[in-house]
């Protein structure tokens, strides 16, 4: 029964949400002045007149850089918890400090090879 009570709370929330949205829209529609002009239909681009179409090409090199960034971002995510606990390791813990250090350097080494590959293939050069 408590299962359905939880869904009841959720249903009330949904109904209230819809009502609130409708209320705000109606109040806004009633109160605001209506002065349409063609200017108001243009794309808003920080106040500068918009140029060109919405379809633009982005340089493919951004993609490569983003890719490399994600790889090393993930490395940082793994490094952080490792760095937090590695100081507390000693001979009594299930994992020895040496094991932890070697394991992390193997991981970093693997990623470094990827970086070396990218470097050698010239993806890091901008021109």
């Amino acid at each position, binding site marked *: 029964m408590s299962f359905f009570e939880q869904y009841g709370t959720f249903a009330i929330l949904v109904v209230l949400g819809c009502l609130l949205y409708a209320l705000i829209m109606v109040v806004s529609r009633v109160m605001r002045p209506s002065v349409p002009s063609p200017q108001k239909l243009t794309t808003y681009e920080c106040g500068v007149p918009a140029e060109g179409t919405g379809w633009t090409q982005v340089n493919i090199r951004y993609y490569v850089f983003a890719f490399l960034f994600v790889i090393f971002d993930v490395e940082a995510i793994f490094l952080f918890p490792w760095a937090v606990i590695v100081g507390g390791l000693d001979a009594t813990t*299930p994992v020895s400090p040496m094991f932890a250090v070697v394991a992390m350097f193997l991981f970093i080494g*693997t990623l470094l*090879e990827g970086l*070396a*590959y990218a470097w*050698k293939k010239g993806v890091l050069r901008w021109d």
Partner: protein
Amino acid sequence: MPIDFIAIMPEIVLTVTALLVLAADLALRGDAKQLVNPLATFGTLIAIGFTVFLWGDERTTFGTMFVVDAYAVVFKLVFLVALLAILGISWRFFAEGRYFQGEYYFLLLTSFIGMVLMPSARDLLLLFVALETVSIPAFVMAGLRKRDLYSSEAALKFFIIGVLSVALMLFGMSMVYGFTGTTDLVGIAEAIRAGDADVPLLLGSVMLVIVGFGFKVSAVPFHFWAPDTYAGSPMPVAAMLAVASKAAGFAGLIAIAFVAFEPLAEVWAPVLGVIAILTMTLGNLIALQQRDLIRLLAYSSVAQAGYMLVPFGLARSGSDAIAVNDAAVQAVLFYLAAYAVMNIGAFGVAIAVNRRTGLRSIADYAGLSARSPLLALALTVFLLSLGGAPPTVGLWAKFAILEAITVDVTAFGVVLGSFVVINSVIAFFYYLKVVKTLWMDEAREGLPTLQPGFNLSAVVVVLMVGTVVLGVLPGLITDFTSITSVLATG
């Protein structure tokens, strides 16, 4: 909880080899880049050595996630020997084509790391990671000929279908975890057996997972990506996708179906049985129409997946069904080993004939017997074996499936068996049509001489001899497959 490094040695060796191959590709220039192939072959041989060393052991590590037993070792050996053969047929193809050699071998090895992980995985998460390690390098490999539109199409189709299937599978897996509270395959089986997950939606999630694997093994109606992808990819990659990647899908499906969802066998077995019937019948009927040898092999591989799905249709739950289930898993395993030998061989001959000329229509194989009797003989043996003619290993592979049906005869089993027999007859028509073209039709004028190269010839000859020898002495494989049991761990 120490890690059992001996148990994961084959994977470690392959990983180190892959990293060395990538480093060697950066260090070497020009023609010296060809050296990455022997390097990869050497690493594979060491991995095979470690795998053989593991034979007869029962090892469990990473909790209960990673299991090495007879079943896993046989599967790993199938994968590693397939890798060896694919390395052999790849050498000249990539060395001459000026493709990205270092990248290709690196991606190939990475993909095989996932495959050797697969039969050992006893956890949904590890299965998923292994499957992705197989697929993601394969997406890139399919598109290696990046200036060729067909190759790009192949890669894109494969990628989109691959991502879709994985999304379905993950959704199913997440619901299974939600209902049973564990990702451990044995734990899932226990939870289902205890009735902890007695909800109708569980069946839906089981079906989602099975559909995901259905895409991987290209079962009808999830097969439509396979012919385009095989035809567009570089040919060694097509061989790898048709054999190794499919075998990896079966390894995962066996683990999911026979370990985790074993208590629900009454639900999924009929579904997979019907899919098996559809897959072999449709695959064979469409293969009849093909004029391109690679597309013919692609549809034939769809049909072969159908044969391999037949034993899944026999599965039943409960402790009195262990004999049936064991026989079913062993039949699939034996069929996969046989299929790897004959199908890689057939692709090898296709590479030998097409590498220089780019011709691949079956008509271009006319008179191959005059141009190269060895290649023609080899292709004949492989095609007859795919059809299931004596004295080739293909006969025993089909026999193993029919034998699994006889363990405990049911009406559905008899229907499945008769479909296997009917489809074998249909398949013979198109295999024999190619054989007739090879030996009876006249060759066109002005075709260049064939220069398959030493490695490719050696691989084709070894596989041809293997097809016949295993056809005479199937015990060389069945002695090992017949004592494997995936259920023993459950």
